[in-house]
C-alpha cells in the first residue's frame, strides 16, 4: 500500500477512530456507559439527530445547506399530533406527516433551484416561516394525549431484538441512502452538482431537479425524526427541534463531509451523529456540570475539524 492510499484510508477512518477513542475514555471513567441498556439508550437518542443529519448530508453534498430542519420537524410533528387527536389512524397519520415533510423540503429546494436564492438565506427564511406556522397552528401550546396505539408508541419507545425501533429506522434509512448515493444515477448526480455545478450542467444533468430532490429527502427525514420524537413524548412540542440544524451540520462536518459540497460520505455522518450523541450521553453519565458540557462539546467539534484539515 502506498502512502497516498494509507493517507486516504486514515482520513476515511479518522472519525471512526475518534468515536472509538471517545467511547474508551468515557467507559474508563464510568463503566455504566457501556452497559447494554445504556448502549441501546444511546442508539435511541442518536437516531433523531442521525435521521436529520442524513438529509443534511444530501443537501450539503449538492453544495447547499438546510437551516430549516428543526422547523420542519416541529411543523410536521404538530400536524401529525393534530391528525391523531382528530382521530386519524396513527400509522396513516405518520405517512401523511412524512409526505408533508417531503413537501416542506421540496419548497426549500424549489426556492433554491428556481428562485436562485442562496441556500443559507432561503432556508433561514423558511426556518422562520415554518417555525412561525407551527406556533400559529399550535397557539404555542404542546399537543398531548395523542393515542394509545401500541405500534405508534413502539416507534419511539419499542425494541425489536433488543435494538430500539428508532435505531432500526435509522439503520434502514442509512442503508437506503447509502445505496442511493453510491449506486444510483441520482446519487452520482448529487455529488456531481456539488462538485462542480457548471460541469454537471454541461454534462446534461438536471441540476434543479437534483437540488429539489435533496431538499425533499431532507424534509422527509425530518418529518420521520419528528414522528419518532412525537412518539417518544406522546406529544408534539411547538418548540421542538430548535437548534437541531446546528447538531446536524456538526454531525455532517464531523463525518468528514466538505461544506463546499461534492465530497463526503453518509457513513461519516452516521459516525458524526454517534460522536455527538455519545458526548451528550457520556457527559450526563459522568455528571459533568452543564457549564462545562458546552465547552467540551465545542472543543471536540473544533478538534475534529482541525484534524481533518491537517490530514488534507
Amino acid at each position, binding site marked *: 500500500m502506498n502512502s497516498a492510499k494509507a493517507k486516504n484510508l486514515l482520513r476515511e477512518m479518522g472519525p471512526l477512530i475518534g468515536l472509538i477513542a471517545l467511547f474508551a475514555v468515557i467507559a474508563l471513567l*464510568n463503566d*455504566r*456507559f457501556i*452497559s447494554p*441498556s*445504556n448502549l441501546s*439508550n444511546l442508539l*435511541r*437518542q442518536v437516531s433523531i439527530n442521525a435521521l436529520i443529519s442524513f438529509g443534511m448530508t444530501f443537501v450539503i453534498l449538492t453544495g447547499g445547506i438546510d437551516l430549516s430542519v428543526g422547523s420542519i420537524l416541529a411543523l410536521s410533528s404538530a400536524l401529525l399530533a393534530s391528525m391523531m387527536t382528530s382521530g386519524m389512524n396513527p400509522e396513516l397519520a405518520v405517512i401523511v406527516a412524512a409526505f408533508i415533510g417531503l413537501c416542506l423540503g421540496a419548497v426549500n429546494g424549489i426556492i433554491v433551484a428556481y428562485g436562485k436564492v442562496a441556500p443559507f438565506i432561503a432556508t433561514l427564511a423558511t426556518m422562520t416561516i415554518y417555525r412561525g406556522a407551527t*406556533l400559529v397552528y399550535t*397557539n*404555542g*401550546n*404542546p399537543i*398531548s*394525549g395523542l393515542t394509545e396505539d401500541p405500534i405508534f408508541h413502539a416507534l419511539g*419507545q419499542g425494541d425489536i431484538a433488543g435494538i430500539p425501533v428508532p435505531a432500526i429506522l435509522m439503520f434502514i434509512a442509512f442503508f437506503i441512502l447509502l445505496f442511493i448515493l453510491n449506486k444510483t444515477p441520482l446519487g452520482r448526480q448529487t455529488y456531481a452538482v456539488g462538485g462542480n455545478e457548471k460541469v454537471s450542467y454541461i454534462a446534461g444533468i438536471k441540476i434543479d431537479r437534483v437540488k429539489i430532490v435533496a431538499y425533499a429527502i431532507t424534509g422527509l427525514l425530518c418529518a420521520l425524526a419528528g414522528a419518532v*420524537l412525537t412518539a*417518544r*413524548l*406522546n*406529544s408534539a*412540542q*411547538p*418548540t*421542538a427541534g430548535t437548534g437541531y440544524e446546528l447538531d446536524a451540520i456538526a454531525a455532517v462536518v464531523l463525518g468528514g463531509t466538505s461544506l463546499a459540497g461534492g465530497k463526503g460520505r453518509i457513513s461519516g455522518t452516521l459516525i458524526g451523529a454517534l460522536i455527538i450523541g455519545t458526548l*451528550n*450521553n457520556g457527559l*450526563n*453519565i*459522568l*455528571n459533568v456540570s*452543564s*457549564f462545562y*458540557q458546552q465547552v467540551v462539546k465545542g472543543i471536540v467539534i473544533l478538534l475534529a475539524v482541525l484534524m481533518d484539515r491537517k490530514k488534507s
Partner: protein
Amino acid sequence: MLKKLVIACLLGAALVSVSGCGSSDKKEEAAASGEKTMTIGFAVSTQNNPFFVTMAKSVEDAAAKANIDVKIVDAQNDPAKQSNDVTDLIESKVDVLIINPVDSAAISNSVIAANEAKIPVITIDRSADSGDVVTHIASNNVKGGEMAAEYIVKKLGEQAPVAELEGIPGASATRERGEGFHKVADQKLKVLAKQSADFDRTKGLTVAENILQANPDVKAIFAQNDEMALGAIGAAKSASKDILVIGFDGTEDGLKSIQDGEMAATIAQQPDKMGEVAVETAQKIAKGEKVEKSIAVDLKLVEKQ
C-alpha cells in the same frame, strides 16, 4: 423597478391586513363597554410558552373586567425586540407599564426610559436589574424549591436517592429553584446527579434516561419545570422504573399528567393569579395608593386528588 413597487405594495397590504385582524375584536369590545378609565401596557417575554400565554390571557381578562384598556406586546424571547416594544408602549403614553422581562439585565435601560417618561413600572415573573420599579410580582421560587424537596422527604423518607433536572444554565429561575431545593435536599436527601435539560421536554427525556443509566437507584427526580418532568416520566417509563417525579410551574400538561397518576406532584405557579395581581396593583398605582416593593404570589403544591 415596477416589480419592486408591486412587492412593496403587497408587503404593505399584508402588514395592514395582519395588524387589522389582530386588533379588530378588541376595538369592538371597547365600543361595547364605553369609555376606558386607564391604559396598561404589558410587555410579555414570549407567547411561545403556555405559562406566559396564560399570564397574558389573565391580564387581558382582568383588565376587561375592570374596564381598563390594555396593550399587549410579545417580545418573542428577543431582548432587543422587547426594548423596542417598551419604547413603543412609552410612546403611546400608557398609564402603567407591566413588564415581563426576557432578560433581567437587558431590560434595565427600558425601565430607566419609562422612569424618565414618568410611567410607573411593574415587573412580573422576572425582575429588572436596575431602574426604578414600583413593585415586582413573582412566585417565590426559592420557597418552591424547598417545598419540592420537603415533599420528597415526606413521601420517601430522609436520605432518599434523588436526581435533579436543571433549567437553562444561569437563568434566575434555575438558580432560585435550585437554591431552595438544595437548602433542604443537601441536609435530608442524597442528590446523586444534577444535570441541565434547558427547561425542554425532549432534553428532559434524554437527560433523565442518561441519569437513570448512570444511577439506577434513583428514587425521585425533581425537575425545575413541568416540561422536563414530563420528559423524565417518559424516561422512567421506558426504563420500567417507579420513580417519583416532581415538576414545577403547574402547566396544563403537567396538571393533566398528575391527574393521570404519572407525575407525582408539581409546585404550581399561578400565572393567572400573577396577571390578576398585576392588573390590580396597576390600578392601585394609578390611583396613587401605596404598594409593597415586592409581591410574592403563592405557589401551590398540586398532587393527585
